[in-house]
């Protein structure tokens, strides 16, 4: 079943016939068409090498599409000038599997860093960082260094950093990939809370249990193409699931 986009809320993200071929010749994405309305919570699933991370990299404009157009907030980001790129990225909160924390900065400094590089005044930085750390449940750990935190806590710091400039869109590439199931679930709750506050969430994941339990929108990618787009989907589609059951 292909999702008919919800036209009540305007699309934040729209992919129009997007192709991505890497310089190596790998065709990572082929003719992707995807509309994400504001406030959506979307899982990107698919086997390894399907093209999920490529889609994420296109979305944050780390890569440009080879063909086709990507609109975010009505702006075609493939054509965006390099000069404008930082301002675009400030509208997005990014979370990765490997956290990408700076080891020589404390928890507080890591979160504050994201605002400091924008040249924000100290008072605002302090207030927002404290708020973000509170949101992810890390109040009290401000002065700890990342190496002294568990994986789940490190990912919380990364999420706090993604939240600190109040983005309307969160993009996460396998944020629970390095976490045990219980911790992964806690982290996922956090994303749900952020989404409930109105932020659009796009998450590439391999976490079958969580996807199947939450029954949110699922876009399955296979060999660079969208194989499935279900409004409240599962990790595997029903056909293959029934095949699995039958065996």
């Amino acid at each position, binding site marked *: 079943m292909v999702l008919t986009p919800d036209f009540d809320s305007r699309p934040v993200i729209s992919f129009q016939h997007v192709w991505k071929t890497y310089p190596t010749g790998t065709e990572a994405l082929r003719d992707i068409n995807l509309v994400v309305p504001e406030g959506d919570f979307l899982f990107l699933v698919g086997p390894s090498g399907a093209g999920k991370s490529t889609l994420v990299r296109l979305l944050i404009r780390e890569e440009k599409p080879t063909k086709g157009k990507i609109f975010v907030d009505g702006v075609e980001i493939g054509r965006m000038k390099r000069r404008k790129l*930082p301002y675009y990225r400030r509208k997005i909160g990014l979370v990765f599997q490997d956290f990408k924390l700076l080891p020589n900065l404390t928890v507080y400094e890591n979160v504050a860093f994201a605002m400091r590089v924008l040249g924000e005044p100290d008072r605002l930085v302090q207030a927002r960082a404290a708020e973000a750390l509170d949101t992810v449940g890390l109040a009290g750990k401000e002065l700890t260094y990342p190496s002294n935190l568990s994986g789940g806590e490190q990912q919380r710091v990364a999420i706090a950093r993604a939240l600190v400039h109040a983005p309307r869109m969160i993009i996460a590439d396998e944020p629970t990939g390095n976490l045990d199931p219980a911790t992964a679930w806690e982290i996922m709750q956090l994303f749900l809370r952020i989404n409930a506050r109105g932020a659009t969430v796009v998450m590439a994941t391999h976490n079958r249990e969580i996807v199947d339990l939450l029954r949110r929108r699922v876009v399955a990618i296979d060999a660079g193409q969208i194989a499935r787009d279900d409004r409240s989907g599962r990790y595997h589609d029903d056909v293959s699931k029934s095949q699995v059951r039958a065996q």
Partner: protein
Amino acid sequence: MYRNLKFALNSAWQSFWRNLAVSLAAVLSITLILILGGVNLLVGHAFSQVLDGFREKVSVISINVADDTPLQSVYSLQDQLKVDPRVAGVRFITKEQALDAFRHDPNNAVLAAQLDGNPLDAKIEVRVRNLSDVASIDTLARQWSGVDPTNPTNYQGDFVNRMLQLSQWLGYAGAGLLVILVIVSVVIVMNTIRTAVYHRRKEIEVMKLVGATEWFVRGPFVIEGVMTGLIAASIALLLLVIAYPPAVQQFKNDIAFIPLSYDPAFLSSLARDLLLGGALMGAVGSYIGVRRYVRI
């Protein structure tokens, strides 16, 4: 703006210390280069001091007047020269004045005593504005009807030309050496910055992801480059200031006939050149470095 500057300064300072070995190697190399450059400037300055004295002398040409030339003819040449744009000044020296001057020169004491009558010519001394015009004034003088045909002027064309050429070649060589030194320093700074960028690649990646502008990311590296250049320039300057007076003294002892002197005024211009040069080379090297290695 102020906050960004503070951040950049902080982060440049940290980076400098974090890669202390590389930073020091760069400072040392650039110090050596600036010392070479400074010595080059000092030698150039000393030479131009000597040359200035020489120019002063050879830019005055005296035209010897034949004894039978009427005064009217001398005056008309004098007037002609006075309005010539190439000429800075003209002075007529009569036979008597010439003899007087000759007698009063202690070097000529013996010769003067033996003089019978006045064998000296009257002279027109012409001060030429530009050394390269001396030759044409000389030609003009030799064509004048009143010139002493046996000894027309005191112009030594070959010598002047050779000196001029030598000074020109020395100038070129000095400039060429400076250009090479500048290029080497810029490349050294570029490589230092590349190392610094490599050490901070994680930080740069995070900055990129949270939306730091390109110049926010690059700024600290450029400041680090300028810092490296300035520190090197300060050390080089200190060493040169210490070594300059004794070097001049040594030179004077060894080669007394060249009128070289210690010139404290030159030190301030040397300080300006070295500090400005160091900072500029640091800025250019790191600018090229960050443009190549820090991309958003």
